[in-house]
């Protein structure tokens, strides 16, 4: 399959890249590992005027530990992140999440952590060939006026499918973005809009530069859960991440995230609020499961490779497992 025509630029500094972005905005698209972007090009989901490769920009590939955070350059490859000693020391959950992505041969060495976060949300009516989509008809995301997965819906429900997303969110990651007005830092939790047609709070001229994960003040116990129809080469049907800090038998910190359901990952704040401050008990499991099912019911539509009902049920099952494992209740 061929790609649409475009110009190619591979600047060696972030500034140069930003300059091109400033000039062209959305017409210039960022290529990190390309493992998502190129497929989308082949399907003619995008036909940019220019492709800006981040490959030569060393500053975007740095991984470092500061006094209070682990800083991952957006352009660091998944292999570099997963093998970095600091990542393994502080956040083995992230290694597990990365290990579960697609397959080693697909994105381990080319795919980047930034690209995984900014993976275009997926939908079984959207991630199809040009012929397929044209014969099916347009939807919100392709310039139409309806959603093929949920007729009459006024927005797009495509699915945030990046495997590292719930994990980074559970770890309270922050994003650093560079754009016209300089650098800004935003919590990952506020990055998602919940609308599939424009899933992130990012400006057309902005580039994601870093992902910062605050170093925990005490050891974290964690869990990453993922369900797919195949153990490799398969996007998650639903995934869940939990991070907990238990001190002196009391749950001091807890965060439970479910994702791959709709355009945004969902933080189950209510579970967090109910559990914090007390000793974890098995009740937490039912609580997490019920909350996840309720939340999932509100966002899941029939647009993945399993039915809506199954994905909702499984959101509950995985939230339960993640909670159980993170709290040592399994």
């Amino acid at each position, binding site marked *: 399959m061929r790609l649409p025509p475009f110009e*190619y630029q591979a600047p060696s500094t972030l500034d140069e890249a930003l300059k091109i972005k400033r000039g062209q905005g959305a017409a210039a698209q960022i*290529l990190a590992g390309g493992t998502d972007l190129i497929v989308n090009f082949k399907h003619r989901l995008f036909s940019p005027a220019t492709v800006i490769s981040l490959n030569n920009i060393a500053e975007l590939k740095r991984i470092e530990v500061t006094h209070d955070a682990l800083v991952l350059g957006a352009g660091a490859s998944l292999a570099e992140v997963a093998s970095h000693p600091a990542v393994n020391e502080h956040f083995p959950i992230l290694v597990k999440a990365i290990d579960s992505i697609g397959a080693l041969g697909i994105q381990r*060495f080319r795919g980047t952590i930034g690209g995984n976060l900014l993976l275009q949300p997926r939908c079984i009516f959207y991630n199809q060939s040009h012929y397929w989509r044209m014969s099916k008809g347009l939807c919100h995301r392709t310039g139409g006026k309806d959603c093929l997965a949920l007729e009459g819906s006024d927005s797009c429900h495509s699915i945030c499918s990046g495997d590292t997303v719930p994990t980074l969110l559970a770890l309270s990651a922050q994003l650093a973005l560079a754009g016209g007005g300089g650098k800004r830092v935003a919590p990952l939790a506020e990055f998602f809009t919940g609308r599939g047609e424009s899933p992130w709070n990012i400006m057309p001229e902005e580039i994601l530069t870093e992902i910062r994960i605050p170093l925990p003040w005490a050891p974290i116990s964690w869990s990453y859960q993922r369900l797919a129809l195949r153990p490799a080469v398969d996007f998650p049907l639903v995934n869940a991440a939990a991070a907990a800090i238990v001190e002196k038998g009391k749950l001091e910190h807890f965060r439970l995230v479910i994702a791959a359901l709709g355009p945004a990952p969902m933080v189950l704040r209510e579970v967090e609020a109910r559990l914090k401050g007390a000793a974890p008990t098995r009740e937490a499991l039912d609580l997490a499961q019920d909350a996840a099912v309720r939340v999932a019911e509100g966002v899941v539509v029939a647009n993945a490779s399993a039915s809506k009902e199954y994905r909702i049920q499984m959101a509950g099952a995985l939230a339960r497992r993640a909670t159980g494992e993170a709290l040592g209740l399994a």
Partner: protein
Amino acid sequence: MQKHLLTMRVNGEQVELAVRPNATLLDVLREDLELTGVKEGCSEGACGACAVLMNNEPIRSCLTLALEANGAEILTIEGLATGGRLHPLQEAFVEQGAVQCGFCTPGMILSSKALLDRNPQPNDEDIKTALAGSFCRCTGYAKILEAVRAARDGDVGNEGS
């Protein structure tokens, strides 16, 4: 669309050619360099037939812009045997019956090579993880697993191919 100059080493040889920015590495290897051992099975990153090694790491040539390989070292299946002598992995694939239709074979062998270079003593789980991105519809993978084990253990050259 302006063509760009692409310089890379392919199977040990320096190549320089002008390519369109929208050409994939797969297009350039198959069409310009006529290295048709690089197979196109899905063109979407899923099947692994197009795998090549870029700086010793397995990548999907169908998902890689040719220009992204500028300055890189590329190994395709054509570059694996040296002086008419098969690489031990190639021998093992032949001897263990790991080749049926052969369409997945180049990608399988290259992915296995990257694994053995990285980790000379992989266990079964390591092998499966390294090959999980390569589909084979013919063999059920059993003999492929055996072939990689045999290459790992130096258990090749027994049957003389």
